[in-house]
């Protein structure tokens, strides 16, 4: 068979062909762009790339539709809703106490903030306040939770930027916090520990000592993070000037939390609208003035140190006392205790209601199945979650179940800034921009 390339037909840029005795043979080859498309087509090339919802660097089930020209993003559209679980609707069909168990599953990296925000709203509707010890423990566990959340933010940030040791280190340190939270609440995540009126139970024996040990270890670990990442030239090059958003942009788009503080505005609800006695704690609000992913990284690192300071102060001021309001019409009747398999009813309590007091059994039954009534009205309670303003708009019609619970989740609001942060930049910076927002899709989609 004589093979000649003389009659090669290059008119099809993707598959040139020539005649052989066996018939027409096509050769699919590569080639330079200017040969295949011509130089003039290069500038007009518009590529729509669908990134996610299953993509390792979009922080969960987030979908981005990117219009690209070369590597430049001309348009970024964000599609959410893949993790919508109807939690807000579900709370309307459960008692006020059961609501805690639902809301804790929204922003799963900051479960205690969801619980605290919800419980503060219910308490405001009820007109009750948790006892001082409960308030201090709430601050304590919330700041532990903030450290865990920021460590995940750093870990995933590292992973998405290609600094995989940052990821393994971040998750390793977070595990220490989760061990503490497991010891205190019985669960690593989704604790349902903060309840309307106080806490599910007091700190177990030994928890304070273990938290103090953690406080000894953690500052060195933060310093290790700085050694590992902060001075690293690649890390700096990837983060600096990526995802730029200034204060005006943040406020217009409703962005709060570390992103707003990295733009230079020291807006932290723990300082400006204190709750749970935050005004009595001594801590700083770290800010940066770079408005970019680099500043957000630095702010989060500094906030870990501030949280350590708050935890130490909270431990020092722990006084013995009740951790639940004394009103038996609100306080959960069961004496919960922490067993080897998590939190449950204490055996003494079960003996009491089953064998000794009929009235206690009736009271238990009424409060557990029917629940308490909350006076009609509506409140909005904002707290500072690791991602920004977490607001609970809770409406009661005077019944035993919430009429409406709406959650202003910071991930939901902050993600709106994606387009403003990434359009006109390179596609690699989109990853940095989203990672620096630290969205949690469980909270975003609810």
């Amino acid at each position, binding site marked *: 068979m004589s093979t000649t390339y003389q009659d090669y037909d290059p008119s099809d840029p993707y598959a040139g062909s020539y005649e052989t005795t066996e018939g027409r043979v096509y050769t699919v080859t590569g080639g330079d762009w200017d040969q295949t498309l011509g130089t003039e087509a290069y500038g007009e090339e518009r590529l729509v790339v669908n990134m996610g919802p299953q993509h390792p660097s979009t922080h969960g089930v987030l979908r981005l539709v990117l219009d690209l020209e070369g590597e430049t993003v001309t348009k970024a559209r964000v599609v959410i809703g893949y993790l919508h679980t109807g939690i807000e609707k579900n709370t309307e069909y459960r008692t006020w106490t059961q609501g805690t168990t639902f809301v804790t599953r929204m922003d799963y990296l900051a479960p205690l903030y969801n619980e605290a925000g919800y419980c503060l709203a219910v308490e405001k509707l009820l007109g009750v306040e948790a006892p001082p010890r409960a308030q201090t423990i709430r601050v304590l566990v919330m700041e532990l939770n903030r450290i865990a959340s920021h460590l995940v933010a750093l870990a995933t940030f590292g992973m998405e930027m290609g600094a995989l040791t940052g990821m393994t280190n971040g998750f390793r340190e977070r595990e220490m916090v989760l061990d503490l939270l497991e010891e205190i609440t019985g669960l690593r995540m989704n604790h349902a520990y903060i309840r309307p009126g106080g806490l599910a139970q007091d700190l177990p024996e030994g928890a304070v000592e273990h938290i103090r040990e953690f406080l000894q270890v953690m500052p060195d670990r933060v310093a290790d993070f700085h050694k590992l990442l902060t001075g690293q030239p690649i890390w700096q090059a990837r983060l600096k000037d990526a995802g730029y958003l200034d204060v005006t942009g943040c406020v217009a788009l409703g962005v709060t939390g570390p992103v707003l503080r990295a733009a230079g505005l020291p807006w932290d609800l723990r300082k400006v609208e204190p709750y749970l006695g935050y005004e009595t704690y001594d801590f700083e609000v770290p800010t940066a003035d770079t408005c970019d992913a680099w500043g957000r990284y630095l702010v989060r690192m500094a906030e870990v140190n501030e949280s350590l300071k708050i935890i130490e102060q909270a431990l020092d001021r722990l006084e013995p006392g009740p951790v639940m309001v004394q009103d038996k019409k609100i306080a959960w009747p069961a004496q919960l205790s922490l067993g080897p398999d998590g939190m449950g009813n204490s055996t003494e309590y079960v003996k009491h209601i089953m064998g000794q007091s009929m009235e206690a059994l009736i009271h238990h039954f009424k409060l557990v199945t029917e629940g308490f009534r909350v006076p009609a009205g509506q409140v909005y309670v904002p707290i500072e979650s690791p991602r920004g303003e977490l607001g609970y708009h809770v409406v009661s019609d005077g019944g035993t179940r919430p009429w409406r619970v709406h959650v202003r989740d910071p991930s939901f609001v902050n993600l*709106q800034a994606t387009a403003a942060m990434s359009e006109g930049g390179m596609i690699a910076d989109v990853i940095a921009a989203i990672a620096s927002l630290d969205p949690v899709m469980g909270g975003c989609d609810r």
Partner: protein
Amino acid sequence: MTGPGDRSGQDAGQGAAAPSGGFRKGAFGVSGSGDTSGFGGLVRVEPGGAVALHSTDRPYGGWFDEVTDALAEAVGQATYDAAVQRVLVDRGEITYFVAREHLLPLVQALRDDEALRFELCSSVSGVDYLDSGGPAATAGRPRLHVVYHLTSMTYRRRIRLEVAVTAEDPHVPSVTGVYPTADWHERETYDMFGVVFDGHPALTRILMPDDWDGHPQRKDYPLGGVPVEYHDATIPPPDTRRSYR
């Protein structure tokens, strides 16, 4: 005017004396023969529905009067009187019930006026007051409420605006021109409650799939489900199951 949350069909302006309450029958709030608790004939008068129908009298106390005066001055007293139907101060929070025709000039003034400076729109959401605490809704009652939470970062104040519309004519002007952050909030409110925000750049569903039918967080949205047989007993679907109210 028919006030938001008015369940009795009376003029809301005359109902200012006391929040009208509904009544409930039985321990479980079911009708028919489902209530086997022995309390089926019990009639309970409830202390009030979800929406109080009265208005708070001046002075409101604290900075509430200052903001209200500044707002009236910024938009003009005539516009203010037409726009703000009622003002309610409850649990240290102030709520302005606003007529939808006047929403936009009001939020524009709230954001831009030097004495107001509500720069941040924290949240926009909906509430469906279908039959809260009383008899079922009548057509034409403004049961869908859109709730705006505005924050003044300058003065560290928060206020709430509430716009009530009927399910038959659920149109509210979009505030995205004043607060760009309201974009997704309004999409979510449309998605969940079916409130149409006129002037929104792209009012599409955001959490539910694009081809979804209905608006899930409306109170009359069917929950679905089938009766389940378990150990010779039949468990009805969630929204027909008996429960405490």
